[in-house]
């Protein structure tokens, strides 16, 4: 507890999506961590409020698209006093440089964090090349 730093307020980043939206509402960029090991690429994204059925992950032509919708909470008889954040859709796209084994993609959503593991196909995993000296 002592060595960790204080979290700063970060406003959600609103984005303009490449395609026009059919759904009315705001679109935000989720914050992500992406890291790579020798066998897989793992992506972590903060998408609070997205339920598993409203999350869509799509990978085609090496483009990974993550779309998540947050339902608006409109309860009759409620009046807003403070609105510091807004909800809407989360959208982010990545172009992957590695070849991914599409059948082994694993997505896990817990506490508003998506963990997506994208295993590389066999041939893309680096191999140590032995150098023969004459």
């Amino acid at each position, binding site marked *: 507890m002592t060595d960790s730093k204080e979290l700063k307020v970060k406003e959600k980043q609103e984005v303009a999506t490449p395609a026009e939206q059919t759904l009315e509402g705001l679109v935000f960029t989720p914050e992500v961590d992406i890291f790579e090991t020798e066998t897989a690429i793992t992506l972590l994204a903060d998408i609070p409020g997205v339920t598993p059925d409203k999350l869509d992950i799509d990978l085609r032509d090496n483009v990974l698209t993550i779309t998540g919708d947050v339902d608006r*909470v409109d309860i009759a008889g409620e009046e807003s*006093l403070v609105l510091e954040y807004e909800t809407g859709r989360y959208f982010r796209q990545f172009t992957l440089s590695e070849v991914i084994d599409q059948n082994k993609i694993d997505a896990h959503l817990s506490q508003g964090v998506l963990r997506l593991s994208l295993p590389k196909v066999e041939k893309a995993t680096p191999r140590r090349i032995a150098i023969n000296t004459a």
Partner: protein
Amino acid sequence: MIYRRFFGLPGFENRNPFSEIENMRRQVDRLYQGFLSPYTRPAAGVFPLINLMESKEDYTLRAELPGVSSEDLDIQATANTLSLSGERKIPEEKRGAKYHRREREPGRFSRVITLPGEINPDKVEAGLVNGVLTVVVPKVEASKPRHISVR
């Protein structure tokens, strides 16, 4: 100031005499947008950002806390304040991981929210679902609106 703006040296000021008016118009537009949208800029500057709603019976507070588990979250209530504190932990990944993006941040947070009316601290209910915290705070009888019939 005005003298310089209108009669200042040519070449140092904007060449277009209407650019100043154009600027002003844009600022006014922005002001109107602000009035129309319900969104209020986070004035407190303290994590996490909150949305506070009021109904006749209670106040509902919502905050986005992705990756914060309920064990790492502490909520305390007094007669008219609610304090949220906790820590967002990001577990260390196994060694050899090379990062392409690292935007998510771990850290501690604590925030006190003063509610506009008196609340019942014993009946506060909190839930953390899909990274969104919802705290329902019932008002005390005295601060609930009462219907007054006119005779």
